[in-house]
């Protein structure tokens, strides 16, 4: 296992989408574009691939946009269980990049799904993080990493200090 796959939010950037190298479309064309059944089905699968799914630019280790980076950080702070998390890099697939916007009726990336339900983009994550709604949501969804001191909210507990797999 490489160092990168053991980081806080592992790089499970799965690729159910066949590469679409010959179909790079100009960004303005997606408004008029029809979300094909195959794209919709592929996104259905992606959304259902884990309890927590983030569509982002870049990977958890190397986010390629500040908004995606901030979202990954929030998921880490919240203590989302890496086993229950999958990230999809929209930059690897133009069909996904445009399709997910239409699928979610949401114009920007990142986009967070919890138990197949759309939660929101970066702004919403940030406000839900500071209001406490996000930890409530994750708690209810049962997606937080198990910890020895489940009541402890300290980010620097002994257990975490010892855990060399966490990089943040």
């Amino acid at each position: 296992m490489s160092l990168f796959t053991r980081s806080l939010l592992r790089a499970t950037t799965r690729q159910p989408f066949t590469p679409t190298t010959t179909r790079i479309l100009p960004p303005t064309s997606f408004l008029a574009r029809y979300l094909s059944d195959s794209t919709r089905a592929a996104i259905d699968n992606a959304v259902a691939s884990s309890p927590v799914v983030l569509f982002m630019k870049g990977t958890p280790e190397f986010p390629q946009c500040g908004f995606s980076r901030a979202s990954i950080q929030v998921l880490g702070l919240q203590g989302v269980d890496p086993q229950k998390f999958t990230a999809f890099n929209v930059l690897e697939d133009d069909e996904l990049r445009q399709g997910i916007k239409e699928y979610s009726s949401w114009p920007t990336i990142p986009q967070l799904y919890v138990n197949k339900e759309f939660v929101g983009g970066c702004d919403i994550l940030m406000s839900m993080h500071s209001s406490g709604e996000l930890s409530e949501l994750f708690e209810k969804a049962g997606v937080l990493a198990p910890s020895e001191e489940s009541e402890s909210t300290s980010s620097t507990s002994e257990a975490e200090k010892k855990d060399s797999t966490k990089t943040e």
Partner: protein
Amino acid sequence: MAENSGITAEILEQTIRSKLEATYVSVVDNSGGCGQIFEAVIVSSQFEGKTSLAKSRLVNTTLKEEIAQIHAWSNKTYTPAQWEKLKEKEAGGA
């Protein structure tokens, strides 16, 4: 992405004011002039009784064409009551 989207903070602000009946709008262009990165704060009574997701959806739908042309769009949405509370909090030095 286009080098210059042609979208300006003023255009966005006007659209938000007229279509969302916003009582307060602030749109900041963080793109350094290329017209692609915007941050908005919007206060409107149309947000009453809506969740953050529903509020943002309303804004995104209203500005669908404009957002499609820019690179990054961020918005904070408040009802007039939420906005008053926020201002009080800030004034109180909290």
